[in-house]
């Protein structure tokens, strides 16, 4: 999933000031799973904004809504009427959702209420961690199913580096050294010989470094 974190309330308050009719718009997929931008967080944020505005004797109305996925035009287009009825939209989706709104509503102010964090997993309730860098050419077959690009602080392909200690990464004793995890896993799988080979230099052109990416599937186009 794409993980998001709601921005600090002060930042949101500052950003939305002056837009009298403000629509707080949630996204029911990843941002809801992140407990940052689902229907429930929309309601909580709307209440907080109403109170803040009332205290500051500021006028205006806070509207609320949420869609299944802000990253898909079919869902976003359903919002035509309510968006037309407000001055600005505060999106609680990831950055992709924010941009889909900006594209579909060219004359509307669209504001981000969340910071998009990473592609990750839920470790336990309330804890998410980064696990995929979206590099465009997966190498997990060679690294025991654990990704050094997303999870090694130095993106080493031939780790662990000299800073790996007691299973932790040199940058933070709370962060696992993914290369230690890779070592342990390959050892358990009887595949340690994989780590004797030098991992070749990566072609980053399939990742962001090749320029903005797009997927076109002719077979699916209508």
């Amino acid at each position, binding site marked *: 999933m794409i993980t998001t974190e709601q921005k600090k309330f002060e930042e949101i308050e500052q950003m939305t000031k002056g837009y009298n009719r403000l629509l707080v718009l949630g996204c029911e997929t990843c941002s809801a799973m992140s407990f940052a931008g689902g229907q429930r967080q929309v309601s909580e944020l709307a209440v907080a904004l109403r109170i803040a505005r009332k205290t500051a004797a500021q006028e205006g109305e806070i509207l609320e809504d949420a869609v299944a996925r802000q990253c898909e035009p079919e869902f976003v287009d359903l919002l035509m009427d309510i968006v037309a009825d407000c001055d600005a939209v505060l999106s609680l989706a990831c950055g992709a959702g924010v941009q889909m709104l900006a594209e579909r509503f060219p004359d509307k102010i669209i504001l981000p209420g969340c910071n998009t964090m990473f592609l990750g997993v839920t470790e336990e309730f309330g804890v998410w961690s980064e696990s995929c860098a979206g590099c465009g050419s997966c190498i997990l077959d060679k690294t025991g199913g654990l990704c050094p690009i997303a999870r090694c602080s130095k993106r080493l*392909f031939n780790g*662990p580096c*000299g800073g790996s*200690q007691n299973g932790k990464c040199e940058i933070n004793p709370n962060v696992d050294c993914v290369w230690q995890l890779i070592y342990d896993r390959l050892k358990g799988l009887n595949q340690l010989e994989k*780590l*004797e080979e030098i991992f070749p230099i*990566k072609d980053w052109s399939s990742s962001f470094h090749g320029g903005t990416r797009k997927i076109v599937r002719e077979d699916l186009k209508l």
Partner: protein
Amino acid sequence: MKSGSNLEKILASGQFAVTAECGPPKGVSAKAIQRKGDLLKFHCDALNVTDNQTAIVRMSSLSGCVLLQQMGVEPVMQMVVRDRNRLAIQSDILGAVALGIRNVLCLSGDHQKFGNHPGAKGVYDIDSIQLIQTLKLMRDEKKFLSGEDISGEIPLFIGAAANPFADPFEFRAVRLAKKVKAGADFIQTQAIFDVPKFARWMEMVRDRGLDKKVHILAGVIPVKSVGMARYMKNNVSGLSVPKELVDRMADAKDAKEEGVNTCLEIIEQIKEIDGVHGVHIMAVAWEDIVPSIVDKAGLMPRPIV
């Protein structure tokens, strides 16, 4: 000879080599480097010029190397992959070779988080082992990573680091083997305080026959104070500082003298370990002590090759 550098010649002739670290200034003073060069030139075979060490911005390693070179002191240019992509790496190597640099030490570099620009973007386009491969390709095949030809020779003596004290311990000799396979000619290790553990690592290194394929220079740090010993024990990842050393420093009347003595004892012990071909002295902010350490360790005079 791959590079014809002084360091390479000394190691090739089977003599015990001595290198030391020479950190460039946080400013533009050529004198800061020249002073260290003057101080160390008769006692060391080559001086490592660090590359934004601990991710703190300093004068570039290449410029520091040139300043040493101009005064007849042989440098080892340290190069980290944290700050440059493959384009910058290869072009810096071309420039370094043109300026007469022959020894390069390939490193990943301390994470930018530790330095004075923690908000910097870390490059890490290739890793340190791939950097070794890159230099070998440039030297032996006269090719860029793109496959295109390089005009001219790239006579380099390629170095790499090794940390016998990092985890997982059993993998450390394997990782060294990868560096050797990638093309490392010499190794400078992390500072050794725990000699028995280092000796165990060297045993694994010898079992794989690596000591015959690469020259290993054992790293040492003279410790100046009990505070420094404690700091290294508790705060520097990848260092193994035994409690006894800290206690010894704490009990000593003259901590500096004790630090020198411990360092000399460690050098004495590692000299006896099969496969160790030299010592690399990292006297961070205490370079003045290096000549007397080299002297007292019986490593003078330095060979002329």
